[in-house]
């Protein structure tokens, strides 16, 4: 019973087929636990936004069901909407209202009386460091400020889950850091958060668990640490070179001490090695000896990008 109470999102066989037999989401089963920051990671068109849309009453599933905060989203959409907070990709602030009024009326939509809504609107503007803009038009806000106001609005009615669709896309680096500070703080206060992203570094650093999605299916679902460990890779060397890359890959696989695998992905050779001591000079030496011109060389531990490449054979950044 207690485990059920801790499940804030549950989906069973959740599927969306758009007209023209385009399957955007294909039999998704996942559970999000209270207090998690859950990341849907995948390239554009993987089905992340459609999944979020089905969970937030906007995209009607073709098959399957989803439950948020104990309410079946598609049996009781109006009830479900009281339990979710949504920060979409585009700015959906009310252009006819000021910054403060945006929050005030949001509170009223969600059943706050005037007094409570006024107090909460002011408190949130202080918390989100927007209080000096309270009377400004929302058109006068920078991208980062508008995004902060949308987060404030989305959590105002204390939703069971906060959904964010690509929360840092299009933000400058400073606003991106500010956004993550806010999400981190909400997380510490116990807010359950589900977000979609195609930034691997962010998913890696901030998410409690990550579902790697491609073509509407979950390819892997675990904590970032476990996902990276699951690749079995210790060190990864990425080599950009001119010449026959397949030949270079075979050469390095055979000739580098501790090499466990080498393959060509996106016109680069990815070499997996146990232990990193002296690998780079050895790679350059060997390639040079056989007439390959190495133009770039990188060495790192496996990232979620490595996980994605391992799972799909392609680069997430494309």
């Amino acid at each position: 019973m207690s485990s059920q109470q801790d499940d804030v999102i549950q989906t069973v066989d959740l599927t969306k087929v758009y007209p023209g037999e385009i399957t955007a989401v294909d039999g998704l089963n996942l559970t999000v636990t209270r207090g998690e920051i859950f990341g849907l990671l995948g390239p554009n068109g993987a089905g992340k936004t459609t999944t979020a849309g089905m969970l937030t009453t906007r995209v009607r599933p073709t098959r399957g069901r989803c439950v948020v905060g104990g309410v079946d989203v598609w049996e009781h959409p109006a009830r479900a909407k009281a339990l979710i907070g949504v920060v979409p990709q585009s700015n959906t602030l009310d252009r006819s209202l000021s910054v403060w009024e945006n929050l005030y009326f949001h509170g009223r939509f969600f059943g706050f009386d005037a007094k409570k809504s006024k107090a909460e609107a002011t408190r949130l503007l202080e918390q989100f460091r927007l209080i000096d803009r309270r009377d400004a038009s929302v058109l006068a806000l920078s991208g980062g400020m508008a995004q902060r106001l949308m987060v404030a609005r989305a959590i105002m009615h204390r939703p069971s889950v906060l959904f964010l669709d690509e929360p840092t896309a299009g933000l400058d680096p400073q606003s991106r850091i500010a956004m993550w500070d806010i999400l981190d703080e909400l997380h510490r206060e116990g807010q359950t958060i589900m977000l979609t992203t195609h930034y691997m570094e962010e998913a890696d650093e901030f998410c409690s668990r990550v579902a790697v999605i491609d073509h509407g299916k979950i390819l892997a679902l675990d904590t970032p640490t476990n996902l990276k460990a699951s690749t079995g890779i210790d060190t990864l060397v990425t080599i950009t070179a001119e010449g026959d890359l397949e030949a270079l890959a075979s050469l390095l696989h055979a000739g580098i001490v501790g090499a466990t695998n080498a393959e060509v992905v996106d016109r680069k050779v990815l070499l997996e090695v146990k232990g990193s001591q002296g690998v780079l000079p050895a790679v350059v030496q060997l390639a040079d000896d056989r007439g390959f011109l190495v133009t770039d060389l990188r060495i790192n531990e496996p990232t979620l990008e490595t996980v994605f490449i391992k799972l799909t054979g392609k680069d997430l950044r494309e």
Partner: protein
Amino acid sequence: MTDLTKSAGSLLTADSPPVSNLVAFRALLQRDAFVLSHNLKEFIPRTVLQPLLLVFVFTYVFPKIGQGVGGGQGAAQFSTMLVAGVLASVILFQGIQAVALPLVQEFGYTKEIEDRVLAPLAVEMVAIEKIVAGALQCLIAALIVFPIAYFVPATAVNIHYHWLILLTFIPLACVSSAALGLSFGTFFEPRTVPLLFGVVVLPLTFLGCIYFPWQSLESIRWLQILVLINPLVYMSEGFRAALTDTPHMPIGAVYLVMFGFTALFVWVGISGFKKRVLS
């Protein structure tokens, strides 16, 4: 699966109490009223100017300079007849301006509608709120414009109130116009709005029996039949019956068709709205 069904079925385990549909509905209306009250300096000129010019030129300037239509002996009769037409056209216009135009923007590029449909009420209720708020704006517009149509004409206007008709027909015309606005708002895109005015609204108003009673079209029989597809005809004729003793279409027929049009526009508007916000 069974776990899921259990937890979904038992609403007691839900995280927070539901917000009543009506509470959210009322709050949406309050938001619209708030925005309207802050935009009066735009609302009033945009509402007043067109009917003011219409009434001024047709019933003040023309009689004064003794020109054709509205001049000469029929002047008083024409002014009286025009009051009904002006009211009808103002209400129809307002329905489009208050509902269709903002909605086209919200769907098209501001995307504000995405937030409005996340308010905790059924999507249909969000659409109905648009109709109610629009109908109230139509009513306000009619109240502002009526004195203009009454006082501006150079000749006396013979108003005879038929209260029962007036008090039932005003809400009907307002709801019908706002629902038509909702239908247009979900159908047109920012790019095609000029078409809405050039190809839809213009013929509606010119052939909406604003300037002439429907019965007078008898001499152009085909036109008299053709304009029957125009909802503005019934609105003009209905107000003629409500405000004057001038000839008008049988009032029973006016009500019957108006109810039909209203039901159609509400249905088209709500289903169009759902189609736009859900995928």
